[in-house]
């Protein structure tokens, strides 16, 4: 597959503004649906205790988690995906695919609709299948002590949430490619006098590579993969790796730009390519810094409690009333009008 013609490039790279508006729109939709449910609940039983058992103070409303809160939760679970992939010995492409699936899914859906943990498991399972590094659902769930059924039932919804676009491109593969190129460049320069790359030792390259892979892992935890193509993410990770071992990256970047310029049909001048890349790398670096800061389980739990409370309220609203009618109504408000799922299935999932 070529990246230029891929669904990844055509449908899943955004500008920061697009990304913000997609999320804001989704967040509003869910917040409104939640407010409506709450309003109805209070109108029905003004003095009754809330679902958590504490007396409801008049006017106190359950505040849905903000987008920033959701981001914390998602980042936490993306980190968990990486841990699990390491435990299972999955290759990087599975990790990257699973995280990408998770990030894409929650562009369209809210954590209030689908529990992040379960979706994460479904994404990981799907990524294993898609990347042909298959692990059986039974075995995976046994090792993670999870219910197989939950995971398998969610699969169609995850697929739909992803728009059935399943091929993803990871910075890790691109990174391996750049290091491959680097070695070739070094060899090619061996005899010539332009020895810009000769100061870098083999040891340094090895260490830089390790550090760069860690940097790519960190980038995967952020929004960067939704904003930048994998090649640029890889270059940023590579520079980060070089900085770590205190090796000069400028020469390497210039070489890569030169090769790109030589091969590009447009014959763009080398300075331009270099400049574009440098600019991209700088913006990606900010994400790298963000990605390397881990979310603690405590932080995640805090958000998760709020999410669960909202989920509980929604579930309660749907259970309290004549089931079929209400449920469809609430669910379709949550999901927009697009849902084609049978109501019974939805309820089961959201009840968790």
């Amino acid at each position, binding site marked *: 597959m*070529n*990246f230029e013609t891929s669904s990844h490039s055509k449908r899943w790279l955004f500008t920061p503004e697009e990304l913000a508006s997609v999320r804001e729109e989704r967040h509003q939709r869910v917040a409104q649906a939640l407010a409506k449910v709450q309003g109805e609940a209070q109108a029905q039983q003004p003095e009754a205790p809330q679902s958590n058992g504490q007396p409801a103070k008049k006017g106190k409303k359950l505040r849905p988690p903000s987008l920033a809160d959701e981001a914390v939760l998602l980042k936490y679970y993306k980190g968990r995906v990486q841990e699990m992939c390491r435990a299972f010995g999955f290759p990087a*492409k599975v990790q990257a695919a699973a995280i990408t699936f998770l990030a894409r899914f929650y562009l369209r859906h809210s954590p209030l609709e689908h529990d992040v943990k379960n979706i994460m498991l479904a994404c990981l399972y799907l990524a294993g299948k898609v990347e042909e*590094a*298959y692990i059986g659902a039974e075995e995976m769930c046994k090792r993670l002590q999870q219910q197989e059924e939950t995971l398998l039932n969610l699969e169609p919804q995850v697929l739909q949430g992803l728009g059935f676009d*399943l091929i993803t491109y990871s910075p890790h593969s691109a990174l391996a490619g750049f290091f*491959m190129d680097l070695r070739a460049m070094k060899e090619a320069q061996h005899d010539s006098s332009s020895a810009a790359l000769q100061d870098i030792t083999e040891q340094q390259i090895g260490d830089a590579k390790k550090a760069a892979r860690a940097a790519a892992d960190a980038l995967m935890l952020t929004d960067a993969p939704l904003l930048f*193509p994998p*090649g640029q993410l890889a270059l940023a990770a590579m520079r980060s790796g070089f900085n770590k071992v205190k090796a000069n990256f400028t020469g390497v970047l210039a070489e890569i730009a030169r090769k790109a310029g030589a091969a590009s049909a447009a014959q763009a001048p080398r300075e331009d*390519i270099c400049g574009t890349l440098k600019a991209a790398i700088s913006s990606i670096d900010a994400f790298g810094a963000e990605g390397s800061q881990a979310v603690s389980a405590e932080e995640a739990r805090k958000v998760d409690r709020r999410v669960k409370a909202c989920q509980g309220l929604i579930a309660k609203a749907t259970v309290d009333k004549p089931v079929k009618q209400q449920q469809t109504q609430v669910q379709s408000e949550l999901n927009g009008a697009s849902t084609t799922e049978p109501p019974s299935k939805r309820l089961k999932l959201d009840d968790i």
Partner: protein
Amino acid sequence: MEHYEKGEKLGQGQFGVVIKARHIETGQIVAIKKIHLGNAKEGINMTALREIKLLREIDNPFIVRLLDVFPHKRNLSLVYEYMDSDLECLIRDRATIISPADVKSYMQMVLQSLLACKQHWVLHRDIKPSNFLISMQGGMKLTDFGLARMFGSPESGRYTHQVFTRWYRPPELLFGSTCYGPACDMWAAGCIFAELLLRRAWFPGDTDLDQLGKIFQALGTPSQDSWPGCACLPQYVEFQTTTAPPLRNTFRQASEDALALLALMVALDPGRRISVEDALAHPYFRADPKPTLPEQLPKPPVRAHNPLNQSFKGGSVLQAAPAVHSEDAGPAGDLNGKALHLEPASAAVNGDGVPNQKRLKIENGDYSSIASLSEGEELHEKIRPGNLSGDLQKQVSADELKALQEIGFEAGSTRHIISHGDQRLKKRKLNFDEHDHG
């Protein structure tokens, strides 16, 4: 589903039904494959998933288009463009005359489909006449990507040899190879070429062994010269030596250049089998008679009870390939990846289909194509002298980086690596084995 008006049932398959339908708004006639999700233990069927995954990315006039996918009740519905007939119906239909110019036109389209697959780094692995759909306008498209997979990434592990319907399965797969490339599809295309000329299957084997017997009877048994290293393949069986009779004995009417191309397409040694690019550039296609224009091709007989594609009869593929879902499991390792580079590598590096310019267009970030190739670097680290048998060691470590960067591989090295690949894999104990359900 509300967007479609249901029509007749086209077929019943293992995973569900195929129906004809009409898109209400646009009036477009489509075929809908309903895949029943049921209570399958492993969730969505791998075959369906592969088909969705690959067809969502490929937009090519020679590949059937997947127009839409949606869940409906307990089904996943796959919507395809509707095609009236297929190449198998055409070949079997005694009333249809297929002229040499028509054969040329069909073969050109078959090869165009193969080229599209290769350019997208896909091995189809179920090339056969019934998977080439034909429209009344004469267009032909390849369908059924349920056995297809991506190739070229060193991470992707061992491939199963249980693919292709037996009659079209290449000899390296019959011998159990798990490291193969686009040449496998070329073999099957060669079989189709022969079938168009003969109007019957060339190698209708009853068992895998009989299949090999029929192949060697026509093409001669492989020798160290004609196919170096074939004896090292996991399921190699020695046959009593026979030499190939001239193809002319079988194909009496065919032109010289047709037989020349056919011979190249069915070279026993996958390393010597013609590439799809070279096949399309073969003099056969430029010589007279010129290929018939698609709209002037014979009108295909409309299938009476034939489903969208053959595998949905619940038949041949699945019987021929029982182990498909459990294979292809864990990345069996880097060494394997190395071996896989052969064909992929030349494709990636010299850009037949994946030109350098694309590969290096960094502003668009397409490093993935080289990346898949270049992860060979990691292999390089692991494949150190001592791990390997002598031959291979030389092949891999000495020229590795250069070879990968240069235009194409030497045919010689290709053969060696292929032939040794399986042995090495067997020897290696990889930490991924526990996930490897193959």
